[in-house]
């Protein structure tokens, strides 16, 4: 089997031994109606409404979406417009909390009798991929093709982030139960829990737990970024290739994030939808890096203050990891379902971009075998045929090419801009 390219990053998992700290319920939460891939939700509440914990406050008629729930009890004080880091605008429900945390009567374990009711329950949970991409889970768990393998993505290959690792260390049984639940509901034969080699304790622990279960395989992924990328993890754990224009399901696999599968298990037991999440808060501006569990809608500023951050010193704030995370333009933005990390840095030097020297480092590191240097050149002259032949549409924006470029060319960004030139069929 061919080895895919990858890069060695400094792991900087400073918080790997920091048990999750629960952040107290804030005075106010602001919950955007679009936190996942797919259609944004419409608010189901009005200003002045009382809401309770677990109550659905936003939903959409479009199947490719996930409903939004409140994680607090309190009163809706405003419905505002929210612009996310991608620039898209959606509605946002602002709730002043009453501190009671009264649980809604909607919260009860769902009744699951068959696959259909299972998928429906998954949708009602508001679940999406918690690794960062935010793909609605109920869509993923309702594939049209025949699935024989469930891959649980526990690579967590980005530096700093330890949110999934803490899930593995703190709730391992939920993960195993979740895997078994998804397997039996969807009639999937095998499960593979794929963990990057930089988490030896988790590998050891799960290997012991799954010792007597032939259907769950624990896979050690090499420590080469980006192991957690979907195509990479599928190839490295099953040897299967997801062909251009097809889905992982067409290769007979479903890939789920490890925290998502644990959450789903808990939801089926308690009926409490996705209203909290764990984030790693780190970066050199953060005084006390921590793993924090908080309700969705908490502002980044409060979490940073909670971790003894000198707010004035922050130059760059990243939601997610340093490789694929998004620059946060506003420190008062809220935690969303996909926030797996918040990294605050007190310095950022923008190096000047210089000419491509054609050293080929970008080609050597691309896990998919793309040629970013050539794409860069074709993009410059807007050669769309050439861009198509260079398969730029397959770029997953892992950022490895930009990372290694000695001329500091923004190759990954160029790839995304180049994609926009190619007409969609």
């Amino acid at each position, binding site marked *: 089997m061919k080895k895919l390219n990858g890069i060695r990053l400094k792991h900087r998992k400073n918080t790997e031994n920091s048990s999750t700290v629960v952040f107290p319920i804030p005075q106010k939460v602001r919950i955007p109606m679009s936190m996942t891939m797919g259609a944004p939700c419409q608010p189901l509440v009005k200003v002045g409404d009382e809401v309770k914990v677990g109550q659905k406050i936003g939903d959409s008629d479009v199947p490719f979406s996930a409903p939004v729930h409140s994680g607090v009890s309190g009163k809706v004080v405003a419905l505002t417009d929210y612009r996310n880091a991608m620039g898209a605008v959606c509605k946002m429900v602002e709730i002043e909390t009453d501190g009671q945390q009264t649980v809604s009567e909607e919260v009860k374990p769902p009744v699951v009798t068959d696959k259909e009711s299972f998928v429906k329950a998954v949708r009602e949970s508001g679940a999406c991929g918690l690794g960062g991409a935010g793909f609605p889970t109920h869509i993923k768990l309702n594939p049209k093709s025949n699935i024989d393998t469930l891959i649980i993505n526990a690579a967590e290959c980005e530096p700093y982030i330890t949110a999934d690792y803490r899930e593995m260390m703190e709730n391992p049984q939920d993960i195993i139960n979740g895997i078994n639940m998804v397997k039996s509901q969807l009639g999937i034969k095998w499960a593979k829990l794929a963990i990057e080699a930089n988490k030896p304790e988790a590998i050891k622990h799960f290997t012991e737990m799954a010792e007597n279960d032939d259907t769950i395989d624990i896979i050690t992924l090499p420590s080469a970024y980006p192991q957690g990328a979907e195509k990479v993890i599928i190839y490295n754990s099953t040897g299967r290739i997801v062909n251009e224009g097809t889905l992982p399901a067409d290769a007979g696999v479903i890939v789920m994030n490890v925290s998502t599968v644990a959450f789903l298990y808990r939801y089926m037991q308690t009926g409490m939808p996705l209203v909290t999440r764990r984030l790693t808060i780190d970066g050199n501006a953060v005084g006390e890096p921590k793993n924090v569990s908080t309700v969705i809608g908490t502002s980044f500023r409060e979490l940073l203050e909670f971790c003894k951050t000198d707010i004035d010193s922050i130059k760059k704030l990243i939601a997610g990891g340093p490789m694929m995370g998004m620059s946060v333009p506003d420190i008062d933005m809220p935690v969303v379902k996909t926030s797996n990390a918040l990294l605050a840095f007190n310095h950022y030097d923008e190096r000047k971009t210089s000419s491509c020297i054609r050293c080929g*480092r970008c080609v050597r590191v691309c896990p998919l075998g793309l040629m970013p240097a050539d794409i860069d050149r074709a993009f410059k002259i807007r050669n769309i045929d050439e861009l198509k032949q260079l398969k730029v549409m397959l770029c997953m924006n892992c950022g490895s090419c930009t990372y290694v470029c000695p001329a500091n060319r923004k190759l990954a960004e160029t790839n995304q801009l180049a994609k926009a030139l190619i007409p969609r069929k």
Partner: protein
Amino acid sequence: MNKLIVSPSPHDENYVKTSNIMLNVIIALLPAWGAAIYFFGMRVIPLTAVCIGSCIFFEYVCRAMMKRSNTVGDMSAVVTGLILAMNLPVTLPYWMAVIGSFVAIVIVKQLFGGLGQNFANPAITARIVLMVSFPAAMTNWIKPLEYDYDAVSSATPLVLAKKGGELPSYLDLFLGKTGGCLGEVCALGLLIGGLYLAARKIISLAAPVSFIGSLFVLSFIAGDDPVYQILAGGVFLGAFFMATDYATTPITTKGKIVFGLGCGIITFVIRRFGSYPEGVSFSILLMNVLTPYIEQLTRTKVLGAKEAEKNEG
């Protein structure tokens, strides 16, 4: 509070810069350059200084005249100057070296768009231009260790091999105790430099190995002394420092192997059948010209990409 800086991902980078790579190439050339001083005397130093100085000068002036950013800081002009000096005989008049630098920097590099855009190796092209313009001065070899710049009798080992004469031993060839250009005599120094660059992952050994390997095999088949063929002349300098030039050789390993094979074959053909005793420079220049085609044919295979579209257009 400061405004937050917003930029596209990734937000992390490694610290290998262009100037850093160039500096490593300079370091890698030093052993062979030091050997040149030992064998050919102190004139090596001013000759090298003239090459490097005029390359920097031309780079600066050319960029300024074209109203482009100053790129002297990337150190590539220093590398070009040093490699050019390595390709010259120690007796070459300084003004000819300046012409060589002009050809390398202005004509080959900057007129084609500067760093990374040149289609041919600047130093190789300059060497060839000087060789056809000033054939006598460019083949003015002195005896090693005698430091007598007026006695211009010594021939290079390849000339000796072609025309007959007393050949230096393998050891002398390997260490560099023979006539030739500054940088090409000491195979040991070049080997150390090449392996250093490979160890720092700055160059890949694909092209050097296929270049030297194919020349060795062809010479062996043709009945020449293969060890002699690879140690004499500019093979090591060309293979490790010019057939590995980023801009003018293919990016993929497959492409690099094709490039090296081509260099080996052309060098062999010129040496064996041509009227020139040496063919390394021409082989690299010819393969430089073929590089865009080699690149087209040796692209990487993208994971999961549809094959059918490959023949479009």
